[in-house]
Structures are given as C-alpha cells and as structure tokens.
C-alpha cells in the first residue's frame, strides 16, 4: 500500500493512534476508547474543516495552538442536537419522571454531553410548565468549551423554530413555544429565565468523576460514540451521581446492555430508554 492515507486505512490508523496519544499527553483529553470508525471519520472531516493536509500536520499544530485544539474539540467531540429531539422521550419525562422529581424539595439534573444546549432548554421548559423550574438546578456539561459558550448564549438559527414548535407540542407542551424565545436577525434567543439556575461546565466522561448528587441524568447519543469499556466508565460515573431510584435517560438506540452496570438499573420506560437506579 502506498503512503496516501486517503486509501490506506492502516496508515491512517497508525497516525490517529499517535494523534490520540499526543492529545492525551498534552491536554489530558482521552479519545482512546471512543469508537474507532466514528472518531476517524470526524477527524477526517476536521482536516477539511480546518484546512489541513494530514494528521501529522494536525498533531503538530494542535499541540502548539490551543485555539486550534479548541476548534478540533468542537469538531470531534460534539453531537448536533435539537430542541425536544425525539419528542416522545420528553413526553415520557413530563408525564412519568417529573411527577416523581416533584416529590423532592430540591431537584438536581445532570445533562451529560449537553453540546449546544438544546436539550437543557427543552428540559427547562418542561420543568417550568410543571412548576418545578424554581427548585431545580441543572448541571450541563460537555467536553467542548466552544459548545458550552454557545449553550450559555441560548441563541439558535431561526430555521429551527418550525421543527422545534412541532416537537414542543408533541412533547406535550402546555403553552406556546413562542412564549420562550424572542426572534431577531434570523436567530432566536431563548428566554433568560430558562437558564437562571443552569451551571454550564466542562467535564469529560473519559477522565472525570461525579461532582454532584442528582435525581436525573440525561445522556443521549453520547454512549454510541464510546467503546464498551468507556461506556461502562461513564455509566459508573452516573451511578456515583444518582440518588437511589434516580433516573437515567439514554438515546433512543442506546442501552445499558454492553456496560458492566446493567444490573444496577431497572427499565422504567423502554421506548424512551429511561432507566431507574435500583
């Protein structure tokens, strides 16, 4: 095989392994246990997005330029999400989980892998309509500082409104989605009161530990990017964080089956992938 990584997966494999090791040594970010195919694809796309020729050049510059590292992190670690994605899951949270949360004097929720924040704001709206927002703190964490900055702003493209409105209604929204944003210059700004008690912070499920006791963990479409060993680690951190009988909500195609913690939970709502800690 020639030296062109374009058609030499083994050469690419070796370069990616080197890049991962270098990023870990330099910044402490650990991508070793991310699923290979997805990570490689994202890294290839990152090369084009950053205008770079190859992984060697990427590694050379990422180690030396924190700004490039920040951009790289945004490209390889963040999932794209939307308001009330999979509305039936939010409907299930509203009707089955929130009434249980309501029995606690103070509620804590962790959105792990919050990306640009849409899930956080969707939850906040649900909580507000259930009269629970005032006594809830939401911890919203992600690997990417750039994504966290955008999540804090709560500003999204106006093009998202139509789908968000439909999804909000399908999730059982009691008011009008328009009540929650103001529109200007082709963008919508979500109402500031929604993030009044939201703490945005960086956190890595590969290297960091539990930091708060919570009643609900939302971690949707993050585990699909992890190999089983890292999935087990992440769910272990969730277990450390959850109160007894607390809830864990995964993505609609995810399950605890490949983690070492499947017996620590019971299924609560299968279709919505909501589990309850035993």
């Amino acid at each position, binding site marked *: 095989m020639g030296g062109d990584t374009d058609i030499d*997966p083994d050469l690419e494999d070796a370069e990616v392994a080197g890049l991962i090791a270098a990023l870990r040594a330099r910044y402490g970010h650990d991508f070793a246990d991310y699923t290979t*195919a997805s990570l490689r694809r994202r890294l290839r796309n990152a090369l084009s997005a950053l205008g770079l020729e190859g992984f060697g050049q990427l590694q050379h510059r990422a180690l030396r330029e924190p700004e490039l590292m920040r951009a790289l992190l945004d490209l390889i670690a963040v999932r794209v999400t939307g308001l009330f994605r999979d509305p039936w899951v939010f409907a299930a949270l509203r009707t089955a989980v929130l009434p249980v949360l309501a029995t606690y004097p103070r509620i804590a929720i962790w959105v792990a892998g919050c990306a640009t924040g849409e899930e956080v704001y969707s939850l906040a709206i649900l909580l507000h309509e259930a009269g629970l927002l005032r006594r809830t703190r939401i911890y919203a964490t992600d690997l990417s500082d750039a994504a966290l900055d955008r999540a804090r702003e709560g500003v999204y493209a106006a093009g998202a409104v139509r789908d968000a409105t439909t999804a909000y209604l399908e999730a059982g929204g009691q008011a009008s989605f328009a009540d929650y944003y103001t529109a200007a210059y082709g963008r919508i700004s979500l109402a500031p009161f929604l993030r009044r008690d939201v703490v945005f912070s960086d956190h890595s499920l590969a290297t960091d530990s539990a930091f708060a006791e919570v009643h609900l963990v939302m971690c949707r479409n993050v585990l699909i990017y992890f190999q089983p060993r890292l999935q087990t680690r992440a769910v272990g951190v969730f277990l450390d964080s959850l109160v007894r009988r607390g809830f864990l909500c995964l993505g609609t195609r995810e399950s605890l089956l490949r983690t070492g913690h499947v017996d620590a939970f019971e299924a609560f709502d299968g279709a919505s992938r909501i589990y309850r800690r035993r």
Partner: protein
Amino acid sequence: MRAPATIVPPTWPAVIIGGSAGALPLLPGLLAALPVDLPAAVAVVLHVRASSDGSFARHLGERCPLPTRLAESGARFAPGVVHVAPPGYHLLVDEGPTLALSVDPPVAYVRPSIDVAFESAADVFRAALVAVVLSGANEDGRVGALRVARLGGRVLVQAPATAAAPTMPEAVLAAVPEARSIDPTELSAMIRQALARGARRGEQTG
C-alpha cells in the same frame, strides 16, 4: 524490516446494500433470495424519514430466512442477521467487526448516509466486501463505492434502466470503473458469487 501492521481482517465477508427512492419495493425479494446460511454479514442502508418508526425493517425481512432488524449500537456484525440502519442515524462498520451508530450531521442532506456505511465497511472488510447500490434520486453512495473498489471490494449496481430512480446507480457506474450493472432478478445470485470471490481474494491478500 518488518512490514507495516494491518488491522486484523474479519474472518467473513460483508454485504452492504444501499438504496433510496424506488429501492424499498426491491428489498423483500432480494433478501428473501439469500440463503439462511449465507456466510456473510449483511447490512441495509435506506433513506427513510427520520420520523419513521422503523417498522419498515420488519417489512423488509418478511420473507427473508434471516432475522431482519434495526441495527443496535455495538452489535456484532456477523453472519446470521440482516441489520438495517435506523432512521435518522448513520450506520458505521467498526473493528470487531461491530456496528456503530452516529448522529453526526446529515451528509448531502441524508442520514443514514450510504457513503458513510460503505466507507467504514471498506476500511474494515477491504477486499471481502460487496457494496450494492440500488435505485435512488441522489448521488449518495458514489464516493463510498469508489472507496470500496479502491480497497479491493466489489461494487454491484442495479441496472439503471430497471430503476425507478436511476440517478444513484448511474452516478456509481460513472465513477467506479469496476462497478457492474446487474438486473434486479440476478442481484441475489451475483451477491453470493461476489462474496465467494471476495472471501477467496481476502484469503490471498491477508
């Protein structure tokens, strides 16, 4: 000097079938013609609306001797099951071999993307891969099929004249010199033949 290491190739070949507009009616018959002991991993990637509930997967496998179901994240990609990409997720083939899902942005407006499935499968299966391109109104699959061919796999394309939407088959035939145009009635047999050859080729180069 030692030769560079290669990833350990799977011990069986794979078939990835991709299609869009006009492909759905073809699939039950195509899958029904596969023998229950087909010694290959099989995946199907169709452009369906993200809001689709996925019940179409059961419909696809109605007459198929192999169980047909939506692909699960992390599932082993081995003979015995037909895995169907879930609506709204990219399907990738990973080392193992296992299947992986992704919610990365749509590629050319589609998710699942046939290109994503073909490219990842090519990296893992190399010459032991058959990529099948069916009817479709866009060019998804063209870039992926090229990679399949360059890594030694076979590309079979539904004859454009038989396709409800010939754009996708035509794009692949134009881009991939090694791709072969096949009449739908012969596709199952050609897949089995290509798999047998690919398995032998894989043994020779591995």
